[in-house]
């Protein structure tokens, strides 16, 4: 069955405390090639079929529930056909 993937990231201008903690850990391990880590969320919504109405509903949910526009951005909504097949 197809899966709709919604990815949400903390706004770029905001401090991302989770990412900052992982960045610190990498640097303590000597992985100095990575100057910054940012951590976001990925929602996978399994549906029977993808059509315009479903995609529109996901766009609304992404803006109104999966993310909070004060602190986060929806960075992508993509469709994976036959995910899990």
């Amino acid at each position, binding site marked *: 069955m197809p899966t709709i993937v919604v990815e949400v990231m903390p706004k770029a201008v905001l*401090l991302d*405390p989770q990412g*900052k903690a992982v960045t610190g850990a990498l640097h303590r391990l000597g992985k100095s090639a990575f100057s910054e880590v940012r951590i976001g969320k990925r929602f996978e919504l399994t549906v029977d079929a993808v059509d315009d109405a479903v995609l529109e509903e996901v766009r609304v949910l992404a803006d109104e*529930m999966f993310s*909070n526009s*004060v*602190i986060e951005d929806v960075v992508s909504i993509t469709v994976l056909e036959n995910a899990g097949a």
Partner: protein
Amino acid sequence: MRIGVITFPGSLDDRDAQRAVRLAGAEPVALWHGDHDLHGVDALVLPGGFSYGDYLRCGAIAAHSPIMAEVIGAANSGMPVLGICNGFQMLTEAHLLPGGLIRNDHGNFICRDQGLRVENTDTAWTNVFAANAEITIPLKNGEGGFIADAATIERLEGEGQVVFRYLGVNPNGSVNDIAGVTNERGNVVGLMPHPEHAVEAGFGPDTSAAMRSGVDGLDIFTSAIRSLVSA
């Protein structure tokens, strides 16, 4: 005077809030998140805790609870509404208060007695405080960093919508040391620290007078009663 306290799945401080309402001189009314009924209360408290395990975002799932439709309607009609900690997070998620709360900048949960300055004494929940009163009540959260975009912060500061500000070291990275805010009308207030834990001598923060004698939180609840009496 009847003040409702809403219990959500994962609320922890609902009974403490009910006790604070009672000690302030009003009748606490237990309300349930799954109902569409405010049982005729005169004011509302959304208590602290970890509703729905803080999954998705703190307060986000609770903000979509059935009773929130009635809460939003009551808030927009002027009913005093207080959000404490997780309740504050719910009010921002429900767009009843501006801004948002993110993980503390140092990444750790923090629990301590916290000094605050009351910067707006015209709200439904702060009208018995003296201007710029300094109070001490407990603070306990992992995601208490208040943020908003620069234009919103400027508006909040300019319009006096910052109600409480942290004194001393900023405990969580909140912009401008903001601990609590109100809406434009002044009837909806949210704050991260916990006034309901500083309402009875013997169970509050330490003061210079005696251990655990701090009751600075009580006036937040008596303010709501006064605003209802004078309304």
